[in-house]
């Protein structure tokens, strides 16, 4: 198996995923093309030199549909000879795009690839692409379908993460994000987004609330209580987990990931491509794994995904210097940290999706970007990115920084 190096990983700032968000007026094709164009320009990639562009997108319909990756590759000037493919593994799509790109390189079937992701949540709302999981009665009842928020609350209830514990974790995310911004280290790997006239639309993340207080979080109403209690989803989850007496609804807007717009892309390739294009191998992809888990609990997949990726890399959890565990919901991260006995000081050191937002298809690639730059800044060696995934999955990737 050949090596796959990580040459670069860039991300846009995250815009509020609402009509008043700074990226809302940007078409998804432009959002997707932005990090691709930035990679091309930064590394002077010749036309047609990139062997494939793989991009994650979770709601690939309408203006975000029709294989946005290929169209974005064309529109970013990577050349007609560079193909593109859009993939969807829900929330880990951006990381899976990188893993797939790496797999091609490691298998020797490609020399230089881009993996990344995009999501304009302000323009394509969650669930826009439909699908049988939630709305086909045969499927929904067979799989005990419940919305993610109910699963998050089930996870918190069954494993005993109190409302306060969830809120404290959320507060830390905000504090870390604020500190990263204050010191300027959140700028590494981040590229501004401009309009057609070159005017900056957004050059920093706009979702964080640095003034967040524990009392403020404590006052927020649970987001999924009504859904769970009034519309039967709690009962459906309890039928799958009968040892739980009732679901405690502990997640709310302040301790769940934010809805945002954003895109990210990473440049990966073998040593030959690096030499030919004078690209510095900044890290190496050590291992990656995706797993399936029970779909009603849904969100505990990262535990097994991490175990498998670590084992494939021949590493143990304590050897990982920095972790990026996607903050879909507080309880998800708390669960991974507990199960793998991870030191909290190494996790999401610049804040996570609770503060920064979770642009579904892009997040995995964004976290790789964040992790690469932080490993470099701290001069650490191993980093791991993992995300929980809808319908009960998890994906994890281990990278090693190179001097």
């Amino acid at each position: 198996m050949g090596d796959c190096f990580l040459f670069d990983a860039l991300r846009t700032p995250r815009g509020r995923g609402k009509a008043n968000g700074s990226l809302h007026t940007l078409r998804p094709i432009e959002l997707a093309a932005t990090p691709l164009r930035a990679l091309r320009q930064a590394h002077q990639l010749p036309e047609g030199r990139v062997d494939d562009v793989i991009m994650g997108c979770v709601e690939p319909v309408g203006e975000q549909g029709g294989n946005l990756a290929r169209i974005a590759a064309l529109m970013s000037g990577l050349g007609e000879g560079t193909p593109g493919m859009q993939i969807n593994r829900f929330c880990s799509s951006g990381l899976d795009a990188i893993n797939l790109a790496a797999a091609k390189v490691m298998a020797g079937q490609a020399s230089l690839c881009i993996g990344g992701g995009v999501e304009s949540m302000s323009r394509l709302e969650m669930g826009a692409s439909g699908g049988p999981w939630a709305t086909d009665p045969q499927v929904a009842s067979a799989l005990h379908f419940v919305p993610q928020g109910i699963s998050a609350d089930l996870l918190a209830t069954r494993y005993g993460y109190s409302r306060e514990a969830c809120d404290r974790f959320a507060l830390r995310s905000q504090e870390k994000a604020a500190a990263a911004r204050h010191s300027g280290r959140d700028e590494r790997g981040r590229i501004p987004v401009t309009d057609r006239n070159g005017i900056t639309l957004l050059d920093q993340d706009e979702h964080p609330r640095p003034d967040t207080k524990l009392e403020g979080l404590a006052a927020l109403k649970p987001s999924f209580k009504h859904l769970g209690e009034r519309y039967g989803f709690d009962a459906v989850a309890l039928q799958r987990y009968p040892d739980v007496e009732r679901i405690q609804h502990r997640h709310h807007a302040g301790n769940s990931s934010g809805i945002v717009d954003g895109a990210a892309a990473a440049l990966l390739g073998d040593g030959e491509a690096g030499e030919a294009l004078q690209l510095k191998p900044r890290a190496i992809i050590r291992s990656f794994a995706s797993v399936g888990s029970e779909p009603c609990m849904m969100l505990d997949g990262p535990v097994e995904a991490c175990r498998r990726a670590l084992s494939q890399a021949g590493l143990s959890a304590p050897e990982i210097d920095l972790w990026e565990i996607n903050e879909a919901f507080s309880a998800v991260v708390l669960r991974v940290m507990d199960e793998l006995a991870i030191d909290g000081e190494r996790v999401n050191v610049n804040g996570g999706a609770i503060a920064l937002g979770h642009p579904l298809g892009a997040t995995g690639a964004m976290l790789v970007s964040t992790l690469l730059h932080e490993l470099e800044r701290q001069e650490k060696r191993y980093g791991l990115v993992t995300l929980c995934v809808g319908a009960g999955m998890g994906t994890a990737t281990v990278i090693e920084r190179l001097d």
Partner: protein
Amino acid sequence: MFLHSETDHIVTLTMDMPERSANVWNQASLDAFAAMLDALEQREDVKGLILHSAKKTFLAGADLDAIEAIAIGGKDAEELHGSAGALSELLRRLELLPFPTVAAINGSALGGGYELCLACNHRVAADSPGLQVGLPEAQLGLLPGGGGTQRLPRMIGIEKSLGLIMEGKRLGAVEALAMGLVDAVVPADELLSAATRWLEKNPAAKQPWDQEGFQIPGGDMDGYGAQVIMVATAMFQAKTHGNYPAGKAILSCFAEGLRLSLDAGLLVEKRYFIQLLLDPVAGAMVRTLFLNLEKANKLAARPKGLPRKAFSKVGVLGAGLMGSGVAYACAKAGMDVVLLDRDETTAKKGKTYSENLLNKRIKRGRSTQAKKQAILGRIHPSAAYSDLSGCQLVVEAVFEDREIKAEVTAKAEAQLDKDALFGSNTSTLPITGLAQASSRPDRFIGLHFFSPVERMPLVEVIVGKQSSDECLAHALDFIQQLGKTPIVVNDARGFYTSRVFGTYITEGLGLLAEGVDPNLIEAAGRASGMPMPPLALADEVGLELMHDVGLQTAKDLGDAYRPNPSTPVLQRMVVEAKRLGRKNQKGFYTYHERKKTLWPELDALFPRATAQPEVEDLAERFLYTQALEAARCVEEGVLPSVADGDVGAILGWGFAPFTGGPFSYMDGLGLKHFVSRATALAAQHGERFQPPALLLEMAAHDRSFHGP
């Protein structure tokens, strides 16, 4: 069958099935309908068609025999694929006739009858009281297989139609008009002229779904409709635990069929319809909740050849919860009721019960001041036994104590005519013993009402050793007059219902002693299809009461008494922990203002075993223990009719309705399978799962309770 008349090129088909009180769909009427379509399809001069009925009802749906045949009969997918779509295909042909059609709905149009209306271009109903339209198939574990799941949502929208079909609701003319199930309501004598007028005004009418650009009103499956289905699926699953295939099939007919053309949607509907016919649930529900319920209501158990008796004046002894409820039921059925208790204040309180009920009904629009006054006017609270004079029947509903019962029996009988009936509303005490206090035990019988009487449709009639045939016949007449459903059982401790129902609670409580997580016990109760999980139910019944009954039974039976698995649990809860149940807000649950949570100390009192069972296995135990006890009731001669046994189980204590009752449940599993599984459970969990000899013998001879 279809009387054909024609004026000015408008054809009127009047349905009038010979030798029947109502029109129904059966092979004969389907054939006649097909022949009629054959003829009409050839006609080029026809300008419109009116469908109408010469009966009091329009079309009552599928024939009872036909339902029985399809639900319980052939289980061959190939064969059903050929036959089950017949009505659906004919209705599509009706819909595609080249001239407009109107259903002139003169009386109730239900199920397949209303589906006929849906396939017409226009529906006009008579404003007759009692006229009902709707698709009630789901109540029998079926779905409307004649296009109902496809046309109604296309006509009135997904959200409105889904609830109607899932719940099998029937609507009166006015409500039906408001919901859009009919297009117009007119006086009965203007029905045909209104239909004719509409045809003249709409010569080119076409179904909306057969027109270009048709959209489902209120949002389709790519829009709001999908959300409706998502939530409805979750709520249905939450409520039914996957035990009722019909609801899920209906949801899927919507979710799948409404994305397609009507023709393709009808195919989807047909496949789910056949799947339900192949599933044992529909057959079991039809048998018990339709056929056997009907038989019980028609007094199948009534001794033959005895003249009927009508009741105009009855007495009720004891104005507690049960007595007051019985008094209400009697007065509502038009009888004068003497409601007797120790003192007049208590007796009057019993009447207030009726007043409160009626006030509630008025508030909900289900009764009127006039009706209330009439009903209350028939209830005569009293403390004087002499007021019982002239009563044709007395229902005794005093405290469950032999001595008190004996005393009131003697006092009441002293005032009654010699042919008056005496019915004891005991739920546990053997009737033959109570009848010893009677001077005419041949006129003494058990009438076990269920609480709350006004809502519970069942009365368990207990025939004592000396109860006469006439006594039984008249008791049944009385129950029929109340509009309730009787089942007839013989005398034994706990009779049939209390005895079998008790095993469910016993099993649930016993699991605690085994160290099973109480959450799992309750989850299994819900999953089994019982209306309430066992620990919650025990709290409602009262832990102290159950404990007392246990002590009493032990005393009564002496050496023959055997403690059951709940005995030590009740001992601990009631005697040691002083937790008496719902009544002192302390039972297996702790009661908060609006919710209850399992008492946290349960874990300390009943330490949890390290290995915990699967919910499915516990649910199986709950149904098995009841089914076995029901079988013992048959073996011991307590329960003469398994049909009554099924009906009584569902109506009396809510035995998992999807099974069709304990006997249908055993039949559905196959007695061979049931016996072998029960034997295995007995080896693992104790004697109570040992199948009785009757079952062993039936299994050995490949017999079933309802079949050959």
